[in-house]
């Protein structure tokens, strides 16, 4: 089939628009990346408009890697993203699998309760009191346990498990497998795409833990990366909010812009790197269970 001139025009327009959108999306990333390798002086000299630094330097990265707060908090965030995600997945999948089996008594009520947590949020203070009375204040677990499992994901996963035929389960039971065995040896391997997708959601959420850390963590060397970052990057707008806002920032001592950019690069890198590998499972995992083939 030959392309008509109309087709060609359409393609050219399409490609042009997509390329432009691509550039617009990628440029901020590129800019952050480049500025993180520039010298602060050049940044001041060019009013922050640097497309390509005249002098590449690793000074910003060196500075960051020697600040204890930055390194420690990266460790905390990595711990949250790995251990937290693993726990969250096991718990979420466990609940979802149980709920997807028709022989569980009180299924409906449990589902209602889970739905209830999605609709109604107790608010900050009850949450704080709960964490305090559990003795979790200033412990890294205060950032994991309260958010261990999300009602949304339980329900999504349940609908995914609903599609696993009961016949499989029966066959396994005949071969002498108990419920736990079925869960770990049959169900989980079958649901790798879903696990990967939800795992990524959880991991990103854990990596971005911020506000709960502000509330629950006392020692600054136990805070996750986002808290340290915010401390470095805070950039308020002082023009319109009058005296009070100015007061807030008057004693702020911010690192140079290049250091901020380096911090952004380091903190977004892990997520950026993981993403392409999980991409292929992604579309599959989220959609599964939504369409019955």
């Amino acid at each position, binding site marked *: 089939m030959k392309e008509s001139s109309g087709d060609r025009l359409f393609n050219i327009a399409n490609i042009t628009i997509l390329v432009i959108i691509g550039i617009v999306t990628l440029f901020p990333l590129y800019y952050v990346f480049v500025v993180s390798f520039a010298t602060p002086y050049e940044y001041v000299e060019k009013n922050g408009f640097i497309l390509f630094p005249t002098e590449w330097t690793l000074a910003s990265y060196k500075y960051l890697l020697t600040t204890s707060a930055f390194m420690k908090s990266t460790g905390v965030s990595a711990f949250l993203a790995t251990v937290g995600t693993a726990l969250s997945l096991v718990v979420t999948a466990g609940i979802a699998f149980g709920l997807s089996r028709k022989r569980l008594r009180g299924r409906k009520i449990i589902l209602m309760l889970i739905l209830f947590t999605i609709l109604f949020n107790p608010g900050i*203070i009850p949450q704080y009191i709960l964490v305090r009375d559990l003795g979790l204040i200033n412990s890294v677990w205060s950032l994991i346990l309260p958010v261990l499992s*999300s009602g949304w994901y339980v329900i999504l996963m349940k609908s995914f498990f609903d599609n696993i035929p009961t016949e499989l389960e029966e066959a396994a039971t005949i071969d002498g497998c108990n419920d736990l065995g079925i869960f770990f040896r049959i169900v989980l391997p079958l649901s790798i795409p879903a696990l990967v997708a939800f795992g990524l959601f959880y991991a990103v959420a854990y990596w971005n833990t911020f*506000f*709960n850390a502000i509330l629950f963590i006392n020692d600054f060397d136990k805070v996750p990366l986002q808290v*340290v970052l*915010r401390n470095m990057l805070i950039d308020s707008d002082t*023009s319109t909010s009058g*005296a009070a806002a100015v007061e807030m920032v008057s004693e702020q001592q911010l690192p140079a812009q290049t250091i901020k950019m380096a911090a952004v690069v380091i903190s977004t890198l892990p997520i950026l790197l993981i993403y392409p590998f999980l991409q292929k499972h992604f579309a599959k995992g989220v959609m599964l269970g939504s369409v019955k083939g």
Partner: protein
Amino acid sequence: MSHKEISIKHGFKSVLIGGLLLSTLLTGCTTDSSSSEADGGPVKISIMSDFTIAQPPSEDNPVLLELEKRTNTDLDITWVSGPDYIDRLNVVLSSGDLPDLIKIDDVTNPVFQQLVEQGAFWDLTPYVEEYENLMNYPEVIWKNTSIDGKNFVIPVARPLDGFVTPSIRKDWLDELGLEVPQTTDELYEVLKAFKENKPDGEDPTYGYTMRADYWLQSVFTGARDKWKEVDGELVDVTLEPEMREALLYKHKLYNEGLIPPDYAVMKETQFWDLATGGRAGLTAETIEATWRWTYDQWKRESSVDWLPLTALSAPNREPYAEQFRGYIGCIAIPKSVPEEKMKKILSLVDYGASEEGGTLTLYGIEGTHYNEEDGFKVATEQAVKDSVGVGAFGKMFMKFDPYMYAYAPGMPKEKFDRNKQIIDQKEPISEPDPAIGLVSETHLKMGADYTKKIDDLKIQVIMGKQPIEAWDKYVEELKQDATYQKIIEEMNAAYKAREESY
């Protein structure tokens, strides 16, 4: 569809909290004071405070250890980063889980006010008088932080003068053969000359960055923020003709391109990029912070000279200079702390306000963190590493020093002397804000909406999106608005009550 963190709610519902407060206060655990005090060991004190630098002092920070040694205490400090402090503070206050010494953003904090009413904090009035260093704080600061004529808090003192000050590129003025502006009309001419001549050759060059532009309005209204005292009454300057003048003046600056067209949405760093990139000749900050922000620029080009202005006067008015409220938050001690320990905490805070203690918390240890050079404390690299300075310990302890805002690290002596002189000139004329520390119930409930509306309309008028008549009309509406008038009445009542009780 992200997995749910608790969402930040701005503006706490005091109704909801009120109920919780009492219940948690009764059940809230208190930190038990250890028995080591009895045998003369160090007293354990738990503290919660904010900080505004990259990272707070660690447990083994030399300044902290030195402070503990000299005061015979064992300090357990929870540092919360500045911008988020208020969230944490409100949660901690509401949960009743209070440390022995807690930093409060301001006495007007509604949750704190409720707790004081319920008797959850020590009334320090009878005690503080014995601490001479604390008594060195200016009377006005104590007065402004009082509740019902009593001192439930100790203010964390700051200088009254040298806070937000417009600074101008003196080298540009010299290059163009202009005088330092004294009036708003002269200022306008200067800004125009900056824009047209582009002394640093940047295109476009603006006059004023518009950072913290509230001072420009103050020059016209004579009020630091919203309230001005006239014959013993508080007047809301929003409704006065002076505010209209200020808006017209800013509109003129906007129209002629003397300020950046998108100033209303600009962020902190953007203002400074303009100023240090040679694209603007006027900006505003505390004298100390202006120096820190422009330090790199000066290092590169030593002819650059940002001169803080002493005062400015609007047509037919007195020269205006801002007087800061003189404190940057306050510290309070909960009732759960026994009296003996409370006195110990007071003496710790008092030590922080003394010459010796103030030097330690602000500059660190001599030889390690600073060296004396011709009467000047010059900070070393180590000082930055050890988080010494106003951004950490200075949030709790402060020796009152009227010239604190005149100095920042790296400043040559002649500049420091010049800044001191400017502060001395400001001191007799600077205008205090009479409404500091006053609370209006109605304002807490409804004030934010009005503030937002007023601010939005101001920006629209300045940008010419709305004619000045729209402002006039709105002012008329506010004059008729029962709720708005109630705020004015309540503020006046609070003002009079304080004048009588203190």
